[in-house]
């Protein structure tokens, strides 16, 4: 079932890029984003800023073709918009813009900003007594940025249990992190490592939520 859907999303990505050689930054996020949008996130495509929605931030900003394809597939905007990817009149740039793309929560592109913005959303939702979940997707390369570790320290310290951070570990970082999940755990997160292509593992990890700690999922991409 999942493979059929992934093939469909990949075709949509091809509409955007013009060929089937999708860059690794986009392909590595594809399975996690599909399971997230198909099974986990609550959203209303007719009212993308509904207060009842869960929030998702593509922190790394890079390789948004997979996100755009899934947003179009789910009905946030027309599939034909994908063909305009990075064009002059397009709403779809190579980094997402919250003011142009329905369904995009935060404009990202400069690494190390999105997770902190997601922490801010989770803190604001706590003030508003909302139990909506906040998801952020970061890359292992993005983990080189100091601000990522500021945000990880802060979220653990604040016990932001509504926050889930997915790290796509496609080993793009020049620096070796060793056990990334252990590092999240050391900062007070519930952390697990999964196969980032296995939809059952992705679903199980995204479904779990601790009562007091933020959740970290390290999605390994081989």
């Amino acid at each position, binding site marked *: 079932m999942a493979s059929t859907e992934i093939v469909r999303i990949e075709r949509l990505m091809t509409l955007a890029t013009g060929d089937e050689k999708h860059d690794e930054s986009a392909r590595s996020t594809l399975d996690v984003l599909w399971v997230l949008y198909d099974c986990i996130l609550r959203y209303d495509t007719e009212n993308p800023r509904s207060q009842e929605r869960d929030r998702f931030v593509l922190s790394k900003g890079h390789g948004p073709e997979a996100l755009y394809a899934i947003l179009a597939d789910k009905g946030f905007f027309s599939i034909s918009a994908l063909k305009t990817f990075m064009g002059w009149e397009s709403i779809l740039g190579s980094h997402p813009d919250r003011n142009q793309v329905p369904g995009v929560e935060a*404009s990202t*592109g400069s690494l190390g*900003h999105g997770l902190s913005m997601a*922490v801010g*959303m989770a803190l*604001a939702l706590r003030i508003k007594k909302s139990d909506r979940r906040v998801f952020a997707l970061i890359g292992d390369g993005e983990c080189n940025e100091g*601000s990522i570790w*500021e945000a990880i320290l802060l979220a653990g310290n604040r016990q932001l249990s509504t926050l889930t951070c997915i790290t796509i570990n496609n080993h793009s970082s020049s620096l070796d992190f060793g056990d990334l999940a252990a590092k999240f755990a050391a900062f007070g997160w519930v952390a697990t490592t999964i196969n980032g292509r296995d939809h059952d593992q992705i679903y199980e990890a995204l479904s779990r939520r601790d009562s007091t700690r933020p959740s970290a999922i390290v999605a390994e991409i081989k």
Partner: protein
Amino acid sequence: MAYDERLVVVLAEISNSLFNKNTSEFAERILNLGIMEQTMVSVAAGIAMEGLIPVVHSITPFLVERPFEQIKDDFCYQQLAGNFISTGASYDYSREGMTHHGSGDVQILRSLPGMQIVVPGTPGEFDALFREAYANGSPTYYRLAVKSNPVEYPVHFAELAVVKQGKQATVIAVGPMLASVLTAVEDMDVTVLYCTTVAPFDGGTLRAASQSSNVIIVEPYYEGVLVPDICAAMKQTPIRVETIGIPHKVLTHYGKPEQHDDALGFTPGGIRFRIERFLND
């Protein structure tokens, strides 16, 4: 905090102790994040996305220069509302040296599209200007200084106030420079305009009030920030412009702020000398 329940204070340790007396009532809306200024600004952006109004505060270089990219990307590019309140203007933290100086804040913030910049001259003026601007939908920087004018003016956001009118020159005094300027030009036939909002700049009042082609700006930060706005406002009129502000150089002394003022000629006497030299040139 009681005035508007959307307000959320976001701190990075600086001034946290000042809020202790309020923590019982407003604790959930006073967030001290620890010493992480980049994340402080991004977190504030996330808070703004949820419809709350963040008030972010720290010492000038750590509020403006360290997280400059976060202010640019997360607030200005995303067109989010937020308030940034500094402490320690220019060399107020003179004993700490240049890592704690903030003379370049207005200059770099002026480069950001949509950024509003407020430079009040007294605590009361800050209060009035904040109430006018804090929820107007744009990111706004409030530059607070130790130096304060002895007289409070009825100021309004994005408006120049006409303090005095004359024919020989137009002198624009920014924020806490007004008292020194008024002393410097006491017996001179000049117009004095009081500027407490640097961006957006009130070019209309400058055009209407100017009776001379000589325009002198007295700014409490690196000199010359307002020149492009003045040129744009006066583009139909040939003008001469003199800029008086903090000189663009590395300051190696410590001591008191007043000692820096004396050394740089940033006193009523020094300002008068510069104005007279310009007018007689």
